[in-house]
């Protein structure tokens, strides 16, 4: 239902000039995100202060108009798609870093700050904000908070949620909640901070976040180990943890991924490994002395599995070469087919090997290549089902593969999403995984905070 003239004129009063958009050519992009689903919003607003957000949520509540917070639309699950019409709130102009304190070890930011820019600002003061989703250089902290984004470093440093001390949240109707504090320990009352992080914009609008910082690790180093068999790689991962080391990142690449990477250009391991079966890419950080000692220990741990290729990187340039390879997997995957269905499942760490093997078998049963790779250290696997969507039969087999992968994941005690969130695209799988009563409890929480159901309706649970 289009917005009434009176609502439009109220919006104009709150959002002057180009901070209100209603023309379809201008609002078009705000109807989609990296899921590539689309629904055209009735209006887009661009607040540059919290007061405007308060006014908007007062108006939207009174009129029963859906509101969709939007960072930069980089989520892949349809979290920003305005399925039910209404108003998209772009945080692009709420992009100020309000405080970085090396006394309190906190940063206070507005939601539109780009996470990578926050990290850069912290780094120049010798401070560290650890979460690093792959989109860190172009996604906003608000989106990271909404989806509880993870990333490569999660194995050591956890996900976004573990770095949030407090939030300022505007609720439907315009009330403002202040959760948590600048204290690194704060257990008074229900932990609403952790409730809002990962709520996918369904409970309120996060207008400000107080984030935890730690001293910046002095240095880091990486090690690539290529193994003769997949089981060797998985045993090596176990040996690393058994040696008492917690790497900042531990990435797993199976043979299908290594073959695809070798297809992009000469692979560094090609000379020493005829057919590479699996690889681990690991990173350590800390003081120079500690990283040196840990690297020695890491090499000793993987050496028990006699990897035919070991490559160490101790300078930023050498490290970049190794991690660039990891980033190229997305592109390399298309050698197996022009289209892909992606999931970001997680399974208990001990089940990763079984999950990888069974997903591979499931793919070959359906005549498709499925890549399962990624964050071995925390059990979070990226599953890419490669196919050609222009062939209806392949498209149907790919859809079936996706269903079977998610079914398998749940049967292994895993989760349908390790870091992307549920949004629209994974919604049908939530209840089979969590159970009816649990999902119902989530909806009761929403009803308490958002009785009219205007915040990002139809998403997440």
């Amino acid at each position: 239902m289009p917005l009434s003239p009176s609502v439009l004129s109220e919006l104009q009063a709150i959002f002057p000039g180009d901070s209100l958009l209603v023309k379809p050519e201008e609002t078009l992009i705000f109807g989609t995100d990296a899921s590539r689903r689309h629904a055209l919003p009735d209006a887009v607003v661009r607040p540059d202060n919290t007061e405007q957000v308060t006014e908007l949520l007062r108006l939207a509540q009174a009129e029963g108009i859906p509101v969709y917070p939007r960072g930069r639309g980089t989520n892949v699950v349809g979290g920003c798609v305005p399925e039910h019409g209404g108003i998209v709130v772009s945080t692009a102009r709420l992009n100020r870093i309000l405080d970085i304190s090396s006394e309190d070890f906190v940063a206070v930011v507005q939601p539109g700050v780009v996470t990578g820019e926050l990290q850069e600002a912290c780094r120049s003061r010798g401070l560290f904000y650890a979460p690093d989703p792959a989109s860190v250089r172009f996604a906003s902290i608000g989106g990271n908070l909404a989806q509880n984004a993870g990333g490569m470093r999660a194995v050591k440093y956890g996900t976004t949620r573990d770095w949030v001390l407090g939030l300022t949240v505007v609720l439907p109707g315009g009330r403002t909640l202040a959760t948590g504090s600048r204290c690194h320990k704060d257990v008074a009352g229900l932990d609403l901070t952790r409730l809002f992080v990962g709520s996918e914009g369904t409970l309120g609008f996060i207008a400000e976040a107080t984030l935890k910082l730690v001293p910046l690790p002095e240095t880091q180093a990486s090690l690539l180990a290529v193994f003769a068999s997949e089981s060797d790689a998985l045993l090596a991962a176990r040996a690393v943890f058994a040696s008492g080391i917690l790497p900042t990142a531990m990435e797993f690449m199976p043979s299908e991924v290594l073959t695809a990477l070798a297809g992009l250009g000469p692979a560094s391991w090609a000379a020493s490994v005829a057919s590479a079966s699996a690889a681990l890419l690991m990173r350590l950080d800390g003081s120079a002395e500690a990283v040196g000692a840990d690297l020695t220990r890491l090499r000793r741990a993987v050496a028990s599995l006699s990897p035919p290729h070991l490559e160490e990187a101790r300078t930023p340039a050498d490290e970049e070469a190794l991690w660039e390879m990891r980033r190229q997997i997305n592109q390399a995957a298309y050698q197996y087919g022009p289209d892909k269905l992606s999931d970001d499942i997680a399974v208990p760490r001990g089940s990763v090997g079984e999950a990888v093997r069974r997903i591979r078998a499931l793919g070959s049963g359906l005549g498709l290549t499925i890549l399962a790779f990624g964050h071995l250290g925390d059990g979070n696997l990226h599953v890419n089902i490669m196919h050609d969507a222009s062939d209806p039969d392949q498209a149907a087999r790919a859809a079936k593969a996706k269903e079977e992968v998610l079914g398998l994941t749940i049967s292994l005690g895993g989760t349908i999403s390790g870091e992307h969130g549920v949004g629209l695209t994974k919604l049908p799988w939530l209840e089979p995984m969590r159970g009816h009563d649990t999902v119902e409890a989530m909806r009761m929480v929403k009803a308490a905070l958002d009785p009219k159901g205007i915040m990002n309706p139809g998403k997440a649970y």
Partner: protein
Amino acid sequence: MQKLPDLRHCDHQDAPSGVRPKTCILCGKCLEVCPLFSATGREELSPKAKFYLARAMALATEGQTPEISEKAALELAGKCLSCGKCEKACPLGLCAPELISGLRAGRANLESLMWRVWVENARVLWPMMATLSRLLPRFSLGGGGQAGQSGGLKGWLAGAAGSLRAMDSRTPVRPWLKAVAFEACGAGRKAVLFPGCVAAHVRPRWTASAARILEGLGFSVALPPDFACCGSTLGHAGLKDAQLRMQLQNLNAWRAAGSPELVSFCATCRCGLRSYASRDLGWLPGEREAWLAGLIPFSELAGHAAYEVLPNAPATVHYHTPCHGAGGGHDADFLRKVLGARLKTATRKNLCCGFGGALKLSAPELSEAVAKRCLDFYGPEPGEQILTGCSGCVIQLRAHAPSGVDVGHWLEILK
């Protein structure tokens, strides 16, 4: 045959036919580098929005999204600086300037036609307007002389006044660097300088400085033949015919001069000239290689001389990286070596001067916002200078720089 260089980042032309068209996957990587998005926070101006809008327009012709008018969509999609940064950031190599050039082709609007008149008649219009611009503040041009406030031709004239003053050849940067010794690397080589619109018409000193360096290195420097504009900005404006005409004129002028090494000191011109090699211009065998041979960054040649910094040198100089043709960072490396610690080279991926060719006419307020953000980043104090290697950047940054801050091509500091 010598392998032709990768021209992907310079050559905004249509994809070869028969290739499955790549569709923007909406990943958002372009947001990191787009200067227009960064300066305005307007996601509808981002490269991904342009690709999505173009897709919707294509679907609209099939009757699927009837609510968007083609005219409005073209106008919005056309708001682009043509900096090409998105192409480098895009995992699929999609290039918004190329998209827009294609959309505009055959649908020239007032601004792109005005831009053509401006570029095609540079010889007459540019020096004349640069001179006239000194008188402009005395005229009432609507909007109180504020760029972009009044729209239309009047608004453009008002907005352009600052840029024109910037080109006024009477106020260049004062030289403070002297070449004191040369290697003989140019001995036995013949070169011709491609001056580009700005140097040819309002900054002849750049060409003279460049010629002195080449001669110092032992080159035999031919008189510039009858070169036209390199044609880059016309291509971005969708004026493919006019662009092709200029490309052929330049190619023929070069042939007439005996096909010497073609040397350009403007980063954008050099980028545009290099892209000729990938076009079907009726090249003869071996000609492309000869055309490309001299089109290396001019600073690589200038690096074969030794320099002395004179006492009137400013304490701090900022280097502005042009969007086009500065990929290797040769200018910055050369200047760092010669100027030492006084040169500040801090930059960000999404900095751009905001010149943007036809955008200066269609949306001067956007061009200005981008320039302001760029200058705010450098934060120059009075007495400091900003140097760059591209004519367009010089015009734009001079027009918007705070008073007391000189902006010029780095050739201007050479005595």
